[in-house]
Structures are given as C-alpha cells and as structure tokens.
C-alpha cells in the first residue's frame, strides 16, 4: 500500500496523548509531514517527539501544501467547521476529533463540504474502536441478549486526568487565562467533552435515532465554569432507553471508571471497570488502579485502529469506517441534553434540526 502523507492540526492534549503516538505506531502506513498549532512551542514539541518535517502556527499554510494526503484535526470543537471546510476545499481527506462541531448546522456544512470536494470525512469517536465496546457490540449484534431495551454508560473522571500521562502540552487558552475546555465562551462542558461519546454509544447499541432527551447538569468542581456533571435519559424511536451519568471532577485519587450495561429481553452485557481493572494497588493511601486510563479505554489500541482503518479506507477507496452522519447525530443528542438541562424541558431531537429553528 502507498504510504499516506499526513498533517496534524492542533497539537494539544488529545494529539499528544493519543493521535501522535498512534500515527507513530502506524509509521508503515503514515508519514507525518507537518503539524500546526497556534502555539509555536506546542507544535515544536510535536515535531521534536514525533518527527514531523516542519510546523506551522497557521493551519492554512499546512493546507496549502500539495504533498499532504490527509489531515488529522485535533483542535477544539468550535474550530472544527472552519478547519474541516478549509481542508475539504484544499482537497485533503479529513479525520476530525469529536465532538464533530459546536452546532448541528456546522456539522451539516462539514458533511456538505466533504461531499462537494469528494474527500473522505470521518469523526474520531474513538470508543467505537476500543476492544471493550466492539466486543460488547458484537454480542448485541449476534443477538445474544435479544432485543436491546436499556443502554447505560456512566463515566467518572478524576481532576487532572491527563496529568498522569506527563504530556508535552496541555489545553490551549484562547484568551490566555484559562483553557478553552473550561471556558463557557468556547464549550458547553461535559455534554460535548465526553458525554458525546456516551451519546454515540447509546445510539449505536440502541440501533436507532433518538426521539427525545431529559437531562440535568451542574457545575460540581471548585472554580469550574462549565457544567462538569451531566445526567440524562434518552428515549429512542424504537423504545430503547439510554442513560448516562457523567462526573468529571472527582477527587484526584479516583480511578478513571466507566460502567457499560446493555439489557436485552434475553440477557445483558456488562463492562464495568471495577470488575475489569487488570491491575490494582493497595497501599496505605487506599486502592488505586494505575493503568485503567491507559489500558481500559484511552490509549488501548483504539486510536491505532481508528486512524489505521481510516487510512486503509483512503488507500483502497472504501467508505470511512464511521460515517460522519453518526457523529452528527451524537452531536445533536449532546446539544439536546444541554438544552434540556438548561430549560428543564424534555427536548425532542426534531427541535435540533437547523430547519426547525
């Protein structure tokens, strides 16, 4: 297979913790040509560690290069639409981090731009590529639990979850004072940061689009300014109920825990971190699970599979392994949950369609 030449835009936390290491692992299929980040030091760190030829502080310079086959966009969601549309118009195939965008209208424009320019667009919903969820989904798809009735996935994150990975760079601070991920001007918080994963999983396991969602959210952590706690109930069009409770600012000693439960009319599938933790340490400080974040979910081989399968699809001219429409629907669900939690209303997904505004 022809090696593909890649450019990566946004060398922050997710790039350093997941995308760049995966690209390095996939060196037989990918040559990292250039990186771009508005922060020169972050871009230079990526060049130094992962061997890109050069770096840019303006992503448009990267897109102007004729020798790049695809771009991997790892910037915050409020930049995705602008950058994806620009990349599509530059004729690059595009892998873009989740959440797909900040609005459903933006997501539609991204899909339209990719189609108009005949390039591949895939949104990196990494959990679809993890062993955990693929195995669970396989059991469901084989009919081993009958018809799905309930999908629940709770997620719990400790404060400073990524600090354990000792990354070269952290989150970008657009205004210089606080990271975008905790600034209400730039994000809606947990609904988009991580609940969009749970939204996507629920829709995947339910096998249908959502009808409505009820949600509650709050700011829990000290000094936090965006909702870091979200709980919701989804009613899918086929009657399946989806639910999740997301808590993002738990004590630093708390392990990174997930709990997936899928109940069908003939059985159930469970993947619960406390039961699955492959390594535990007991000490005077209590019990710790040092490898949960790395081995159960985040690094795993999910990103290798996600990027590798995306590249292979380009190489053989196949459709992307994950249709951007799925990411668009997960985004709509997340935004519906935001609306419900702010208003106290049951929000119907039809309300989230741009044509209904």
């Amino acid at each position, binding site marked *: 297979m022809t090696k593909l030449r890649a450019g990566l835009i946004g060398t922050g936390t997710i790039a350093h913790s997941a995308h760049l290491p995966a690209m390095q692992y996939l060196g037989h299929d990918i040559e990292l040509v250039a990186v771009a980040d508005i922060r020169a030091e972050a871009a230079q760190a990526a060049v130094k560690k992962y061997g890109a030829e050069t770096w840019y502080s303006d992503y448009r310079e990267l897109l102007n290069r004729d020798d790049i086959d695809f771009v991997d966009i790892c910037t915050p969601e409020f930049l995705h639409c602008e950058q994806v549309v620009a990349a599509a118009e530059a004729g690059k195939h595009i892998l873009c981090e989740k959440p797909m965008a900040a609005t459903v209208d933006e997501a539609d424009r991204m899909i339209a731009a990719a189609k108009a320019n005949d390039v591949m667009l895939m949104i990196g919903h990494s959990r679809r590529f993890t062993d955990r969820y693929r195995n669970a989904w396989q059991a469901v798809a084989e009919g081993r639990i009958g*018809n799905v*009735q*309930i999908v*629940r996935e*709770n997620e*719990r994150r400790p404060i400073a979850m990524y600090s354990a990975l000792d990354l070269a760079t952290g989150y970008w601070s657009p205004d210089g004072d606080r990271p975008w991920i905790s600034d209400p001007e730039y994000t809606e918080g947990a609904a988009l940061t991580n609940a969009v994963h749970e939204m996507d999983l629920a829709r995947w396991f339910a096998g249908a689009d959502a009808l*409505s969602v*009820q*949600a*509650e*959210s*709050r700011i*829990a*952590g*000290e000094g936090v300014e965006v909702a870091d*706690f979200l*709980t*919701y*109930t989804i*009613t899918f069009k086929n*009657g399946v*109920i989806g*639910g999740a*409770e997301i*808590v993002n*600012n*738990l*004590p630093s000693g*708390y392990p990174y825990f997930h709990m997936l439960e899928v*109940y069908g*009319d003939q*059985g*159930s599938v469970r993947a619960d971190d*406390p039961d699955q933790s492959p390594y535990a340490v007991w000490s005077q400080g209590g019990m710790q699970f040092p490898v949960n974040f790395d081995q159960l979910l985040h690094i795993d081989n999910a990103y290798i599979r996600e990027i590798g399968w995306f590249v292979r699809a380009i190489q053989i001219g196949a459709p992307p392994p994950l249709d951007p429409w799925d990411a668009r629907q997960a985004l709509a669900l997340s935004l519906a949950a935001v609306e*419900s939690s702010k208003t*106290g*209303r*049951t929000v119907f997904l039809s309300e989230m369609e741009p044509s209904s505004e």
Partner: protein
Amino acid sequence: MSNQPALTIAGDNDLATNAARHAIAAVPDDPVYLWRSIADPLVSKAPVVILADAGERAGFAQAALNAGLPTVSLPIKDLDVDLKQAIADGRLRLMSTLHGLPTLARLQQDATNGAVGRRYGVFASHRIPTNFVDELDDVVDDLVTYCCSLIDSSLTRVSVTTSDLGTSATAGWFILARFADETIATIEVAAVLPEADESAGELLIEVTGSEAVLRAAPEQQGVLIRSAEGVSRSNWYADPSDFLLQRATNLRDSGNETASLSTMKLMQKRFEAATANQAVEV
C-alpha cells in the same frame, strides 16, 4: 439497661415479627409491643415503627398519629391530607427497607458524616427480575426514600421517563431529580433481569463528591458458585431488623423532616412528571 428506647412495631409480616424478636433479644428490659393488625387496639404508648406490608402502612400510620405517637414508617402510598401534614410537621417520617442492608446503613452513615465533601450527585440503579414487575412501584419508592435520606435536601425538580421495555406494563422508571443543595440524583429501576426466585436483583448506589466517591453494591456480598449448572450466587445478608430499628430511632430523634418531605414529594411528583413527559418544578 440499654439506651435503646421501647418501641411499637407495626405489622404482621416476617419483617415486623423478626424486628420485634431482635429488639426483645437486644434489649430484654425494654418492652417492645408488636402491633399486628390495624384492627387490634393500640395499647402501647411507645413510638411506632411501621414495618407492615405496603398496603397496610397508611392505616397503621393514621391510627398511630391519631394516638399522638411519633411514627416512622416504610414508604406509604396514597398519602391523604392528614398524613402529608404529619410528614410536613415531623410527626411522621419515612425510611426505606434498604436502610436494613448493612452496606447501605454504612453508606448512609458515611454520607451523613460528610465523607464525600461537597456532594455532586447520587446515582442509584436497581434491576429486578422480570417476574417481579408487579413489585416495581414498591422498589421505586424504597429507592427514592433511601436516596432522599442520603441527600437530605429539599427537592426542586423532577424529570421522569417510563418504559414498558417491550412488555405490556410499565417495567422501567428513569428519574432525574434536582435538590436545593444542587445535588442531582439519577434513580433507575427496571425489571430486566431473568426470572428468578428472589426479587432482590442488582442494586448499585454511588455518591460522588469533592473528597470521595462512595460505591455500594450490596449484592456483591455473597458466595459465587460456579458449577456444571452454571454460575449462581448465594447471598448472606444480615437480618435487616437491627439496622431498620436503628434507622428508625435516628430518624425519630433527628428533628429533621427534610428528607421525608422530599421523599413524599418525589413519590408523588414522579407520576405527574411521567404523565407530562416534562420536568415538574417542586
């Protein structure tokens, strides 16, 4: 002599008779009156703990309150005006059968003592076998009552989704509740487990906060048996009597009716919210 006060225990089921037996054994010098039937005269003047089956609790409560006795009861359906007023002014307080599980008694104690720091939320799910779907409402009320006791704050908003889960009756309750101290509770009860001889099912309760996360899964207290017949679990819960009576005593002495008020409102508003398919402000 013990410091445990004398009690009137109301009910004619195993729970009530076992509790009376335990109380007598634990405190032989203090009389415990077992009030078996609402038709029987209430001769005791001791505070009343109602452990009767769900359908009999309202009658016992009304009679106990008419006699001027402070009363603690398992969840009561169909509260009339008098009983609501009794909860509002603290003469009647509510507890859950779940308070009888040692693990959840300890969770209650730790949560009350502030072990989690600033509390974020309470997640509670109870899954029961499909053949016990008729008991779903009682299970919901028990879980609601327990969660409200953990939170001990005024209820402010309730959202509810119900589902038949592919059957002909309501088989799942999915409740989101906000409280005045900003705690958000997610309470989920569903009849989704395979048919079984016992209704206990699977229960998980987690309290999240700034300093700790408390996680209780009482059904894990058992012996796992793998055999040619498959995998089964033999639970060995302690008798709930002591923990229920201790909870009743603590509740009666607490001077705090907030949890019982929130329980009452949530038990009532869940139906209103389910029918409206919209959040109900309290």
